[in-house]
C-alpha cells in the first residue's frame, strides 16, 4: 500500500467526521479501528510518527486512539 493512498483514505474519513458533531478525532479513530487491517494502521501510525506530512489534523489527532497492530500478527 502506498503511503499516499493511505493518507488520501484517512483524509477522506477525516473530512466526513469533521462535519459531524462531537470529536472528529474519535470518529476517525473508531472508523479506522473497525475497518483497517493491522498493517494498514501500523503504516498510518508510522506516517504520523514521521511528522504526518499531508495528513489532515483530525487524522493526526486520531493517532493516539488507534489500536496498535497486535504483535503476533504483523503481516498484511
Amino acid at each position, binding site marked *: *500500500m*502506498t503511503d499516499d*493512498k493511505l493518507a*488520501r*483514505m484517512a483524509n*477522506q*474519513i477525516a*473530512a*466526513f467526521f469533521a*462535519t*459531524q*458533531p462531537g470529536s472528529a478525532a474519535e470518529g476517525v479513530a473508531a*472508523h479506522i*479501528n*473497525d*475497518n*483497517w*487491517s*493491522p*498493517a*494498514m494502521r501500523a503504516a498510518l501510525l508510522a506516517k504520523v510518527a514521521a511528522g504526518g506530512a499531508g495528513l489532515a489534523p483530525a487524522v493526526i489527532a486520531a493517532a493516539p486512539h488507534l489500536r496498535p*497492530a*497486535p504483535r503476533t*500478527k*504483523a*503481516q*498484511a
Partner: protein
Amino acid sequence: MKDFILPTRDMGTPARHGAPVSLTIDGFAVTVPAGTSVLRAAAEAGIRIPKLCATDSLEPIGACRLCAVEIEGQRGTPTSCTTPVAPGMVVRTQTETLARLRRGVMELTISDHPLDCLTCAANGDCELQDMAGAVGLREVRFAPGTNHFAQRTAEAPNPEWRPKDQSNPYFTYDPAKCIVCMRCVRACEEVQGTFALTIDGRGFASRVVAGQDVPFMASDCVSCGACVQACPTATLQENSVIAIGTPERSIITTCAYCGVGCSFEAQMRGDTLVRMVPWKEGKANRGHSCVKGRFAWGYAQHQDRILRPMVREKVTDAWREVSWDEAIGFAAARLQAIRAESGADALGVITSSRCTNEETFLVQKLARAVFGTNNTDTCARVCHSPTGYGLKQTFGTSAGTQDFDSVEAVDCAVVIGANPTDGHPVFASRLRKRMRQGASLIVIDPRRIDLLDTPHMGAGLHLPLRPGTNVAVLTALAHVIVAEELYDEAFIRARCDWDEFADYMEFAARPEHSPEAVEALSGVPAGVLRDAARRYAAAPNGAIYYGLGVTEHSQGSTTVMAIANLAMMTGNIGRPGVGVSPLRGQNNVQGSCDMGSFPQELPGYRHVSDPVARGIFEAAWGVNLSPEPGLRIPNMLDAAVSGAFRAIYIQGEDILQSDPDTRHVAAGLAAMECVIVHDLFLNETAAYAHVFLPGSTFLEKDGTFTNAERRINRVRRVMAPKNGFADWEVTQLLANALGAGWAYTHPSEVMDEIAATTPGFAGVNYAMLEKRGSVQWPCNDAAPDGSPIMHVDGFVRGKGRFIRTEYIATDERSGPRFPLLLTTGRVLSQYNVGAQTRRTENVAWHAEDVLEIHPHDAEVRGVKHGDFVRLTSRVGEISLRADVTERVSPGVVYTTFHHPGTQANVVTTDNSDWATNCPEYKVTAVQVSASNGPSEWQSDYAALVAASRRIAPAAE
C-alpha cells in the same frame, strides 16, 4: 433429482381481495372475494369453463365469447370472464345452448387456423387444441375461403398470408396461427408495460403487429417474453420449444442474473432444459421476467466453458489440463508454502455475488477458519458496500426495508442513480404498472432514463444532476422539508432521537443547503428541487429506490445516509408502499454480504472484534479466529504490489474487468504468486492465474440466493454439473487439502450451520423453504414467518439516527485537460462484465459498448454518430464508438462495461467511497477526441490475453 412443482393452474382472471360473496355454480356453493369473475369463481370450485382470451395474469376483455354461461334471472349468455360474482347468483356452465354456442365459436376460430397440429411446435401445449376437445368440436362446416394461413389460394399468393417473423433470436411469430385473442397485446401492456404490440385492422382483417407493423427486433420490444408466455397457441413460440419439443416436467429455481431474484420453472425434457418460464407463485416477480432470466441461459452449454482443471507454473506458460486431484494439490501446496513463509495474512479470498449463500459462506469460512485470516472480500465492495454501511448507521441493519410487493402501494416513487428498465427490469415493470395507476415518479440521475417515458404514467419529474452531486441534491431536499415544515413530527418523536433530528434540522436549514445554492453545484433548477421535496413529503406513501449511481461515489455512504434521513423525516418507514430499497446489481449481492464476505464482519454483520460473535464461530469451527479486520479488495491489490499479499482464491468474480483502474488491478494480480480462479470461463482475471478450477452454473447445483428484498430463494439443480462438481464441493476439496476435514454432503447442511450461528437466519432450513417457497430474513423466533417489511414497530438499532450529510466535492473534478464527466451503467440485455450474456443470443442487442455523448459536446469535437472516439482520463485511455444522444446532458458522457475488448475500467480511477472504499465508477473526468482504432492498452491487452489463454494439449 427432485421435482418441485406446485400446481400452477390458470384461474382465468386475476385474484381480487374484496369481502366474501357466496353464489352457486352448477349446484355447488362457492364463496369468493367480491370483484372475482364468475370464471375464476368456477375455477376455485374446480369447474373449468372453456376459455381462450382470458388468463389469470391479465384483465379480461370478453373477446372470444367461449366462456359464456347462463345466469338465473339474466337474459342471454354473458361471458363469465367479464362478469363479476354477485351474492346469491345461480350460474350454469354446461347447457345445451351453451354447448352449441361454444362449438359455433370454436368452429369459426378453427376455420381460419391451419390443421397441422401433428407437426406444430405447440402440439400438446396448445389451449386452442384443448378447447376444441373441451367443447366437442367434431367438424368445421365453413367452406375453405379467405384465410390467413394458406400461403397460396388456388390461383395466386394469398394476400392475407404473412411469413414468420424470426427476427428475435429467442422466439418466432407465426401470424398464420393467430386467433387474435389479444393476450399478447395485453401482456405487453399490463405485465411488461412496453406497449410494443397492437392489433392492426378490424374484424377479419385484424392481426397482431409489433410497432408500426415492423419485425419484432425493429420495434420497441424488449424481448421479455411475456407475450410468448401468454399466447395460447403456437403463434408466439419459444425457439427452444420449436427445436426441442414440449417439456415434460419442471423444477422451480431462481434466476442467477440480477438482484430482483425472479423465480422460474425450469421446464425440462430429460436432462435438457427446454425453457425457463417465470413462476406465478414467485413472490419477487409474480410470474414475470426479463430477457436475461427467461432466455439467456445458453451460456451453460457454451463451448467456451472450461470443464477440466488447469495449472501452470508461471502466468506466461500455457495452461496444462490436469486432474482435480492434481489441481487441488498444486493449489494447496502453493498456499501452504506462502503461509509458512509470510503468515496467514498473505492469503485471501474473494467471494462471489453470483454464487449461492452456502458457497459464499464456505469461501469466507475457508479464509477465516482454514487460512487463518480475515482477508475476505466480495464484489459487493465495488457496488453496494456503502448501502451496508449507511443503512446500518442510520437504521441498524444492512439491508433494504421493503418487499417488492410494496411497490403496489407506492404513491410517489423516487428513483435515484438507478435505471430499473435496464438493470432491474421486472421491478421496473411492476413500478410502471403502479405508475399507470397514478403513482408519481421522481428521477434523480444525470441521464434521462426510460422510466421517465413510461406510457400512460402519472406525473414525472427529472432532476438531471451533475455526476457527483448526490449529497448536495438530497440535502437540499431535506432543506425544503425542514424549511417548509413538511416533516412528520409524530413519527420522528416516536421513532427517532428528537435531539439528533434537531441537530439535523439546524444543519439542513443552513443557507448553503438551500435549493438556490445547490442549483449552482448540481445544475438542477431550484424550483425543481423544491417541487421534488414537496411531492415526496406530501405523498401518503413515498418510497425511495436507488442503485449504483448512489453508492459508487466518493460520498456513496453519505448519500445512503441522506436517503435514510429523508425517509425518516417524512415518516416513510415501516409499512407497505414506503421505505428505502437498494436495487442490488447481482443476484446474490445481499446474500454475499449477509454471509460474512466482508473482512471486518462475520456472517450476520457482526464485527470480528466482537468476542461473543467470534466465540460462536470458534465453538462451531473449533479454531481461534482473528479479531482484526482483514484487507478489502483494493487493499489486497495494494498489499500485493508491495509484496505483503501473495495468494488469492477468487470464486466467480472477474476483478480485472469489473474493478476500477484496470492497470492497478493487473499490477496487483501480476505480483501475486498464487492466483486461483474458480469460474465458468477463462475470464480476464484468469490471464494472471496459476490455477483454474472449473465452476458450475446455477442450473447445476443446489443452494439459495438472497435477493434485494432479503428473500431467500431456493436454487435447484436441474442437471448434473458438466465440470463434475458444484462450486461448494470444489471449495470443500481445497479446504480439505489444507487439512480442514469438512464433510458436507449437501448445501442444506451448510444452511443448517448458517442458521445455528447467525441470529437472522435461525429459523431458515431447506425443509421450511421447500414448504413455503421462500422467506425474507430476519427469520427466527421473533419472526418465524420472516420479515417482508422491516422496522415496523421500531428500528433495529432502537431509535432511527439522523446523520449530518455535508457535500464534499470529489477529487475527480473536470478541468481544462479533462472537461467531461464520464459515468457508467448497464443495458438490459447484458449483465455485469457480460461473461454469461455475451455467450448467448443477447449479443443481438448489444454487440459492443458505446459512448453516449451530447450533440453539443460531439459537435465541438467534430465527432459524428458511430465514429470511433478516444476516451482519455488521467489514468488511461480506450477507444470505442460514439452514440450522439440527448439522453445525456452536455458535459456528461456515459458508457457500459459489458465487453472486455472495451475495458471501460482502464479509464476509471482509484477514487473511492470514504467509508467503504467502494470505487467511484460514476464520476471520472475525461476528454473525448476523434480516433481511428483501439488504444495501445487495448491492443497490448488483446495480445496478452490471447497468449495467456493457450492451453497445452493434455499429455496422456
